[in-house]
């Protein structure tokens, strides 16, 4: 019996196709039951996330027969009428186990090294285990995958650093302020990235959020979501003395804050450090303010450059991760081979 995997992911197919093959969590136990009852697999688990749909199966069938059976099952289970060819991949041992380990470590994810997938994989395995659709083969493969993911997380830098603009902004804030819980955030302009950044700061404990937007309704709506307070766009400067972090993302064609306007405001703030995140294009904040004492200005390119560098560092770690995975795959397959051989040499005694 060997482990095979059939599926599609963000690299092989667009979201329009992936969503047609996705399984709702409540449908998975029945799908696994059907899969096993048809004799395609003796053990099976289904991983269905926004970026991938994969069936992991332990089957006594030859790989080609198992692939055909799993493909037909996927198509039939979703009543898919279109054509699929290259979008679906099919892997047999050792590539299937290698793939499982890479998925667990986040090496096959859209955001390299992300950890959310490990939780989703654990959840998929737990569902299969709870309903009795796994056995010795898949149990061992999944347990090893979780162990490898843990080892890679502790021994390499694959998960180090922030790879999104919002999380880089939070990291910078934490390099300036001792404790975000003592500081307030102001969002000027309620754009998407500004909202994500404010949300990230709030989730890391920022004391409160003040939202200023040209449309006061939109400001109120975002403030409600962030458990903050809305102010009219004309009055944002009046709130400036009490905030320590400013996220600006307006559609203004000119600078809304420059050195001449900020200098008296800094005096009001008694020169406390001020973090200014300017994610607007064209920029809202005059770059000159970065030369002011205790003012730390970052624009979208600064944040993106840091995120890209982190990503590059993660890519550089890929080789080390692959080496660890390669070694663990060999270890698992050798163990399986040894346990099959010992079963053959010493058959399990049967009792009357």
């Amino acid at each position: 019996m060997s482990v095979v995997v059939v599926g599609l992911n963000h690299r092989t197919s667009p979201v329009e196709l992936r969503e047609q093959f996705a399984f709702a969590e409540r449908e998975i136990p029945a799908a696994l039951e059907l899969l096993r009852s048809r004799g395609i697999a003796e053990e099976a688990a289904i991983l269905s996330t926004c970026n991938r749909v994969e069936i992991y199966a332990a089957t006594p069938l030859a790989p080609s027969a198992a692939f055909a059976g799993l493909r037909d099952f996927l198509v039939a289970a979703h009543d898919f009428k279109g054509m699929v060819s290259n979008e679906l991949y099919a892997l047999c041992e050792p590539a299937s186990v290698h793939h499982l380990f890479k998925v667990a470590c986040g090496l096959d994810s859209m955001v390299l090294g992300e950890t959310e997938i490990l939780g989703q994989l654990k959840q998929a395995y737990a569902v299969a285990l709870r309903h009795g659709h796994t056995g010795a083969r898949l149990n061992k493969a999944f347990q090893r995958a979780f162990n490898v993911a843990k080892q890679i997380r502790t021994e390499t830098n694959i998960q180090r650093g922030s790879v999104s603009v919002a999380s880089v902004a939070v990291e910078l804030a934490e390099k300036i302020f001792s404790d975000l819980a003592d500081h307030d955030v102001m969002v000027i302009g309620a754009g998407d990235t500004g909202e994500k950044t404010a949300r990230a700061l709030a989730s890391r404990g920022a004391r409160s959020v003040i939202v200023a937007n040209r449309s006061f309704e939109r400001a109120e709506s975002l403030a409600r979501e962030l458990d903050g307070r809305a102010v009219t766009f004309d009055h944002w400067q009046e709130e400036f003395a009490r905030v320590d972090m400013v996220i600006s993302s307006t559609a203004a064609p000119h600078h809304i804050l420059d050195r001449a306007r900020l200098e008296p405001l800094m005096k009001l703030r008694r020169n406390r450090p001020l973090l200014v995140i300017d994610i607007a294009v064209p920029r809202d904040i005059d770059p000159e303010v970065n030369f002011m004492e205790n003012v730390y200005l970052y624009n979208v390119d600064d944040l993106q450059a840091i995120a890209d560098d982190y990503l590059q560092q993660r890519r550089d770690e890929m080789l080390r991760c692959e080496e660890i995975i390669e070694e663990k795959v060999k270890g698992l397959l050798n163990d399986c081979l040894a346990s099959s051989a010992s079963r053959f040499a010493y058959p399990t005694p049967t009792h009357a």
Partner: protein
Amino acid sequence: MFLLAVVVYGASMIHSVFLWQKGFRRDDRASYFLLLSGFLLHTAAMVKRGFSLNRCPVNNLFEATLFLAWALVLAYLVVGLLPRLRFVGAFASPVLFAIGVFALMPALDPPRGPKPEFTGWLTSLHAALVLLAYGAFGLGSVGAVMFLTQQHNLKVHKLRAVLSLLPPIQRLEAVTNRLVLVGFVLLTLGLFAGGHLPRPEGVQYWMDAKVLWSALLWLLYLAVLVARWRFAQTGRRFACGVIGVFAFVLLTFWGTNLLSTLHHP
């Protein structure tokens, strides 16, 4: 043996330049082990001197300086047991090297007289308080250098700032401020104790180089603290003030000590 220890502190200081360039991205064992080797040599030197004197070797300015540096390395070695705080060695080693070089200056360790220099409880109290104050100012200036390094990174080398193990600048400034405040209180008490010591015949107290220098130092630290507290001279200006005044201490302490009739009757 102490000379060897100072050489090792110097090697650690040179090594810390490379750590500085890399932006303190990871804990550095080399720096820790260099300072550990220096510490062992330093301890051996103090033990040897203690045995030769048959008492604790803190009797004159040279020995007190040795003891202060020894206490600083020990503090670092304990803090450095935590890998994420090991980078502090890169900041501590230049201070240790400077103190070591200072201790090796001539006339700081005169041939021993019949009695130790630090005799009487008030003299001991004066010396202990003032030395502790210099220790606090030294650590404060280390904090200020860390602040300036990280602040520069945050403004210019933005990636280095986020990868660095250095603490947030707000915390660095708060720690520096507290250390300077503690140093200032200790210095005030130490100078107060010194003012009540018996004065040798024929010495004009307020014309003594060390007395004038101490008063100037006290005023300089007072000015740094008042500028921060009253006039919001925070951040870089405060850090530069702390470093500048401590550099003044390092550069002029030995000279004024030699010129002082009160300290060399």
